[in-house]
């Protein structure tokens, strides 16, 4: 099999699919329907992004310091058992997290942001912790040996060397976050989920797609954006994607 042409074949397939989709959408007048939803999409998208930014930045602000504190040698006893709890926590489905958040905090933006915050917090904390714990002990000895203070060691040696792993955690967490925001609609927080779920209820395909496609694109963009930030921010010497 001429393996080299797989990518080419894929490209052709995608082009053909787009062509037929175009023909079909033109003939069925579906584009006009989409245009009709455009203002809604814009409004809900802003709301969607706001929910992500709100809960995501809160989670980062809490998770990274938490991961740092847990990785300190003094915390070794507490940290391992707490990480076990966090690991169990990450297996809990996001819908369940939101449902539990709603049952304690009621309906609206606050329980939604809180649920999203918890779902985002765990992977970032975990990666910060494992990233810092994974820094080569020889580096730590060298850093101590040349007379760096604990703070200098953290900021000049530990964090830069763990940064790639920390960013991987943020990438996973924020992608999950963007994908979970639609569910936040269910507990009354708005966002693109409104179009998807209402579309499902009304069985309106255009409405569904108006919500689903931007949601999917948003997730892909956020994922790529964080990958880009990581690429730029992680020092070249410890950045596998720039090796």
């Amino acid at each position: 099999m001429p393996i080299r042409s797989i990518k080419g074949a894929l490209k052709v397939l995608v082009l053909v699919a787009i062509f037929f989709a175009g023909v079909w959408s033109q003939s069925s007048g579906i584009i006009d329907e989409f245009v009709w939803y455009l203002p809604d999409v814009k409004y809900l998208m802003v709301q969607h992004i706001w929910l992500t930014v709100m809960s995501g930045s809160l989670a980062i602000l809490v998770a990274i310091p938490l991961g740092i504190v847990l990785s300190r040698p003094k915390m070794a006893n507490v940290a391992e058992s707490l990480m076990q709890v966090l690991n169990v926590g990450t297996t809990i489905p996001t819908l369940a997290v939101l449902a539990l958040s709603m049952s304690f905090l009621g309906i609206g933006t606050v329980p939604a942001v809180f649920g999203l915050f918890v779902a985002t917090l765990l992977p970032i904390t975990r990666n910060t912790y494992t990233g810092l714990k994974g820094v080569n002990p020889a580096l730590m000895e060298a850093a101590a040996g040349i007379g760096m203070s604990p703070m200098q060691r953290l900021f000049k040696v530990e964090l830069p060397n763990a940064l790639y792993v920390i960013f991987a955690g943020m990438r996973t967490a924020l992608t999950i976050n963007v994908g979970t925001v639609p569910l936040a609609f269910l507990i009354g927080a708005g966002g693109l989920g409104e179009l998807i779920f209402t579309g499902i209820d009304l069985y309106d395909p255009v409405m569904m797609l108006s919500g689903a496609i931007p949601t999917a694109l948003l997730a892909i963009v956020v994922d790529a954006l964080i990958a880009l930030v990581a690429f730029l921010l992680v020092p070249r010497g410890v950045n596998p994607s720039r090796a």
Partner: protein
Amino acid sequence: MIRLDNLTKVFDTQKGAVVAADHINMEVPEGEICILLGPSGCGKTTTLKMINRIVKPTAGKVFINGDDTTGLDTQTLRRNIGYVIQQIGLFPNMTIEENITIVPKLLGWDKAKYKARAREMMAMIALEPDAFLKRFPSELSGGQQQRIGVARALAADPPVMLMDEPFGAIDPINRAVIQDEFLKMQQELNKTIMFVSHDIDEAIKMGDRVAVFREGKLVQYSTPDDLLAAPKNAFVESFLGEDRALKRLNLVKVREIVTDEIATVVPSDTLETAMAKIDDYGYQNAILMVNERKQPVGIINRSVARTTKGYCRDHFQAVPAVVDLDDDLRKAASLMFAHDQTWLPCVNDEGTVCGQITQRAMTSHLGARYRARQGDDRKPSAAIKE
């Protein structure tokens, strides 16, 4: 100068307290390299790491240049001690330049000064600054990385350096090169250095003094030659190996045992004259022929001189080998074995003959210390202070 005063480390383990270093007393004079030698778990690394408090001493004191370091702040102490470890520990997130300048930066040097210092260090370790300063450690070979490791330790020009098996992870060929480079640097820098090794050959090559450790105790502390000539007990003896007398060959220069009494002939002498000189001096098989500037040009074999008539210039053979006054005995012995000779002519820097070295002189020089020791077994080893 580094002085350890009753330095002790006790580790608490599940199996009870383990004494890793037991009242270590020693002094390394300024500008000397002291090798801490011993099998693994003997306490040499613990002792080294107590000096910069990577391991916190249980008791005892460390003096640097006469000052007690006990009251000194840990970071200040460490910034004034160069530290090189086996795993190198270059920071992979920093460029070579950032790695080298990190200590000067911590000490608050200004930018122009530490930038210049980085280039100076690169010149010292013979790596091209423009090619390497902006690179990252992962882009360098192991040997290059350890050179940078040494440069980082030296960057702030600390009076004292600690090296924990610094060349242990480097392949044997590159290790020898780096050792030689380091010794050359040390001749100019004159640092006081403590150096952990488990390799007896490295210890003899690098050390001005060697401290042998066993089970947390300092067993013997002396110069390499004393160590090899007079091991203090059976443990040191077995650790040095049965070929320890051969190891001393490295330490003795031809200059020390050369005899300047050597008979020579010139090309215009007759073979009869040569034969007479051979007999007069009691040479067994040959005599050296030199030119008018006293440079060795050939040898006249005894058998030829006895049976043939004529001039030396027509009947000589090539000189099998000569040694330089600054060569070590190892090279001399090797040349003798290779050419099946019992003696070799010695030349000075101008290449003129200044004497000879014989197998007999070598063996008697090496043996003298052992014989002296057998005669006086209770001879106190001055270097050990109890």
